[in-house]
């Protein structure tokens, strides 16, 4: 599974892009957001407040119950501030 981090999620994790192989119990977006902080203090800090983290699966906004597959591209980012 490909993970992308943007804006301060990238600064806090120190990662722009990585490939991960989450445990089998990680079946939804919510599962992923619960699992990631267990990977280290940077991830814990970045995901301390999941309410301000937006998730896109395969470049479409996804809700917490959205199912995840092996080949998905999952992006994590704060609320957008363009325009």
């Amino acid at each position: 599974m490909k993970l992308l981090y943007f804006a301060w999620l990238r600064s806090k994790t120190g990662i722009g892009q990585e490939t991960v192989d989450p445990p089998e119990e990680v079946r939804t977006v919510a599962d992923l957001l619960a699992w990631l902080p267990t990977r280290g203090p940077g991830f814990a800090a970045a995901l301390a407040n999941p309410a301000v983290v937006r998730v896109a699966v395969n470049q479409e906004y996804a809700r917490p119950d959205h199912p995840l597959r092996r080949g998905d591209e999952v992006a994590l980012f704060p609320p957008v501030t363009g325009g």
Partner: protein
Amino acid sequence: MGVSVQREDFDPGREIEAAVAGRTDAGAVCCFVGLVRDVVPGAGASALTLEHYPGMTERQLEAIEAEARDRWPLLATRIVHRYGRLEPGDRIVLVVTASAHRQAAFESCEFLMDWLKTKAPFWKLEETPEGEHWVEARDTDEAAASRWQSSGQSSVPREIKS
């Protein structure tokens, strides 16, 4: 006609011209240009860097554009959004809409800007004298975008005026 996500500047006059070139059925063109504001006036430069999510950005902009064309009788739409480092006074974003009548042009242009502000994956990193920081999303932008979702208000064009 269409969407561009680019590092380069754009030319609002040329975009307005292109939107209605060769046609005689458009009575109204609305153009919005967003610019970098100097957030700390007098304190020297406060440039910003716009980060985006290549691929998803274009997808989102195209989806928003299609949505506007479903909701209003538009003859042309154009969205240009820049990324990279920009200085105060620089152009960031352009939206152009054209229609037979002015209400559709105005409303759809506002709609597109409201959605761009809340859905298009761009993030602003601001340079201030105290250092860099990521600009926070504004509740007022969410509120502005949500008015297009309620069935009560403006979700369909009101009666047409020229």
